[in-house]
């Protein structure tokens, strides 16, 4: 049920998801929704945390084994990060709790990259930013390759 909320909130802006949408997609009564989650925001926060546990956590594990920048870019651009991206642009500015979840998740990605590649934290943050940018643009293959060549010139 929370997974279905992750899908809904990850595919549409927060204000675009009505309680009617949640009731019909989650298969629970409106009263139960309020009783269980307190509010739409309460459900949103639980869905966001589920997304971080189900989708971002495995990405961190995979990044830990990444041998190079190309692998890092490939892993991030192929991950399901819909709700994280939407939360970053749509909700973080309006909701401090969302902002701190998003910030912590992105910092964890930075750390995983820094540890895996043995690069400074700020370079890792730049790689995260570039990868998320590529993901937003539909991950054009050439761009990721060009960037990783630039970072680690072929010997």
């Amino acid at each position, binding site marked *: 049920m929370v997974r279905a909320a992750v899908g809904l909130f990850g595919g549409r802006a927060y204000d675009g998801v009505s*309680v009617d949408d949640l009731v019909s997609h989650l298969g629970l009564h*409106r*009263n139960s929704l*309020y*009783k269980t989650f*307190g*509010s*739409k925001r309460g459900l949103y926060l639980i869905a966001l945390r589920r997304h971080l546990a189900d989708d971002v956590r495995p990405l961190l594990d995979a990044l830990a084994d990444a041998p190079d920048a190309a692998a890092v870019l490939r892993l991030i651009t192929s991950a399901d990060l819909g709700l994280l991206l939407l939360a970053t642009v749509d909700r973080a500015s309006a909701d401090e*709790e969302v902002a701190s979840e998003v910030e912590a998740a992105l910092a964890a990605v930075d750390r995983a990259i820094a540890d895996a590649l043995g690069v400074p934290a700020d370079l890792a943050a730049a790689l995260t930013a570039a990868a998320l940018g590529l993901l937003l643009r539909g991950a054009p293959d050439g761009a990721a390759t060009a960037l990783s060549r630039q970072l680690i010139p072929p010997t």
Partner: protein
Amino acid sequence: MALVRIDGDNLVVVNEGLDKLWSFKGSLTIPLANVRGATADPGIAADPKGIRAPGAHVPGLITAGTFHQEGEKVFWNVKNASKAVVVELADEEYARLVLQVDDPRATVALIENALA
């Protein structure tokens, strides 16, 4: 119409004008500790509301008063469903309040921020 404000550690709901006659509750004061959240929910008015007692329910015109549904008491004060806000409570006489407010987005933000 309901006026919603935060007064210290309480949520205060004042039911305005004629609605007061219909819903028999001029104002409600609820400790913020017993408020779980607020949600703009224009769709709720189309749902079954349960059994009314006491209060008034003139379909299409006004839903006001205490409704009993699935063992819960729900307080309604709504004429214009597009401006309905649902306030979920805990350990209170009412399980939730369904209120028509002037600006649902602002009311939801007011309540949610007071809870944070």
